[in-house]
């Protein structure tokens, strides 16, 4: 595990080049080009806002508009979703490199995750603008944001390694993930706040509340919302739970990935 991580550090230049290729090639050839990085979350926001803000009318306790709440959760959610889906094809999609050129294969999922993380940071710039426009203001708790970033990065990387490796041996993974990620979003407080789910379902569907609490993304997304919107520190026990899950998952899947990586060449 340690030597595999060290190798990742030794090849950081390649990692950097691949990340920059990934980011620059993503919207290459399109008219909007780099602007798509901002356009996609905004358009996505528009759709969800129409559906859940105007039609369904989700109730919020805070003093901020629903659209801002939605945007705050959607950005980190997109980071996770794209890391999982991109990570799952990061080995299979680079069969050429995997077969013919020697380099530490743990670079490939890392490339996807880091490049998606940079998209998240770009989105955060837009969010900062939105927050100022709506007069929500900033607070000292924003200094805690890097910790949340780090935990989510570790969690996303863990999943990228897990599915990247699994997909080499079972190609079903990449097909089923789209559905899983969609379902997962609905048990994460992205579209509606945690409090509302608790109110509505605790009697009828207690398992739904339990599921949301067990979901490690709940702690992470809620932390973003609390820090950015509510000017509060994160709910430490829940965030701590997410952190532990993230670290354990990362260690397990990174080790698994490195255990199986020498067989990838035969399978891709």
């Amino acid at each position: 595990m340690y030597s595999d991580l060290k190798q990742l550090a030794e090849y950081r230049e390649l990692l950097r080049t691949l990340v920059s290729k990934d980011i620059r090639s993503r919207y290459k050839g399109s008219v909007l080009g780099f602007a798509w990085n901002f356009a996609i979350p905004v358009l996505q926001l528009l759709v969800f806002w129409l559906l859940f803000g105007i039609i369904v009318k989700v109730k919020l306790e805070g003093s901020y508009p629903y659209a801002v709440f939605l945007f705050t959760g959607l950005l980190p959610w997109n980071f996770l979703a794209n890391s999982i889906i991109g990570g799952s094809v990061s080995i299979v999609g680079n069969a050429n490199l995997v077969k013919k050129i020697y380099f530490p294969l743990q670079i490939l999922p890392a490339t996807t995750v880091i490049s998606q993380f940079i998209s998240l940071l770009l989105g955060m710039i837009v969010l900062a603008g939105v927050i100022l426009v709506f007069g929500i203001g900033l607070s000292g708790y924003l200094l805690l944001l890097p910790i949340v970033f780090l935990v989510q990065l570790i969690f996303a990387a863990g999943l990228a390694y897990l599915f990247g490796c699994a997909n080499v041996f079972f190609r079903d993974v990449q097909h089923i993930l789209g559905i899983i990620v969609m379902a997962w979003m609905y048990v994460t407080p992205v579209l509606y706040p945690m409090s509302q789910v608790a109110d509505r379902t605790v009697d009828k569907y207690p398992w739904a509340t339990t599921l949301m609490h067990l979901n490690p993304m709940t702690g992470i997304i809620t932390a973003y919302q609390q820090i950015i919107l509510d000017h509060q520190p994160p709910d430490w026990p829940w965030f701590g739970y997410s952190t532990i899950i993230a670290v354990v998952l990362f260690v397990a899947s990174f080790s698994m990935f490195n255990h199986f990586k020498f067989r990838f060449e035969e399978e891709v």
Partner: protein
Amino acid sequence: MGAEGQFQQKTAERFAKGPVVEVVDVVKQYKVRHEKGRTLKEAFLRQRIYQETINALDHVSFDIHPGKTLGVIGRNGSGKSTLLKLIAGTSRPTSGEVKVNGRVSALLELGAGFHPDFSGRENVFLDGAIMGLSRRTVEERFDEIVAFAEMEEFIDAPAKTYSSGMYMRLAFSVAVSVDPDIILIDEVFAVGDESFQRKCLERIDQFKSDGKTIVFVSHSLDAIRGLCDQAVWLDKGALRAQGGVDKVTDYYLWAVNEGDEKRLSADEGTQEDQQRWGTRRGEVIEVGLFGDTEAHKHIFDTGESFRVRVGYRSSEEIEEPVIGLAIYRSDGVLCYGCNTSEMDRTPDKFRGEDEVWFEIDDLSLLPGDYQVSVAFHNLEQTETYDHHDRKYRFKVMNGPKIEIGLCHLSHTWRGWQSGEE
């Protein structure tokens, strides 16, 4: 085995430095299935999948010493590419060990890191990074890389606008700018036009004179002989021969021909009869091709010595025996034929066992595949005892550069200058 052991020992003494690549009893197994990628259903329900294990490499051991150029020959599926992958590190042996001391650059997949939407310039940096070059190194060598590829004009155009030749030239150029200790080359010379290919070969020669170790895989024996000083021959994953390039390629070619013959005779029971006929009152028992030495040889160069030994015997007395020999080109053209009746002294009667030699000091045949027929008959040619029709094959590999045709005819050119006067 004795000879090979001796050879290994000798080279070991010569290179006290130790090998750069050690392949120690390597086995590489692949599981071959109907389809790649199991589905979950098959995995969890343990459905029976048609699957067999093949040994892509089967207990292979050899060393490569610094500064040597090693050719790897063998038919398709003999494990050559697997071997390169193991040395490159993209794959690991099932058992055994591959020890590599030094930096490896594999020219296995050219332009693997290229992105069609990026410009040539960006791709040089990208591909360079994948090949293990630092950004600074690429910056330093950038002009050199572009100049070598002859791509100065197009370097800022997107790679997707390149012709396949341009693409490969740039990729090759990046690949050879890597400064490795060990270079793996897998038939990438089908790159670009004639003049670029020559440049590639020159670059490889430069690697050689810089003392780099090169492992070269090719189907072309010509290329192997031209570049390598040592060779290994893989046959269905097993190491059939290793040693000097001439020895191994000769042996390989001989075995391939031999295998073809076996295959032909296995295909057709009558093959034996088609290639051999006669009353068998006398028999040709052995035909061997030689060069200068006593070792059997099947590959010659134009101008080399070419000798054929024909062993024959007869259990009853036959009169005025004559041994005839003819050389055909593989397309059936009779190149030359003659017989022993032109000798000063021929026996009137013969019984027992003996041999004759047909010797050419200076083989004038130009490169190509040839076959030898040997016939044992009487002087009047009223009775053929034993005729071996085109049973023995040989190859002429290297001839005079500009000459074409069947054989070299000694000649001189005159009149160029006098014509102008």
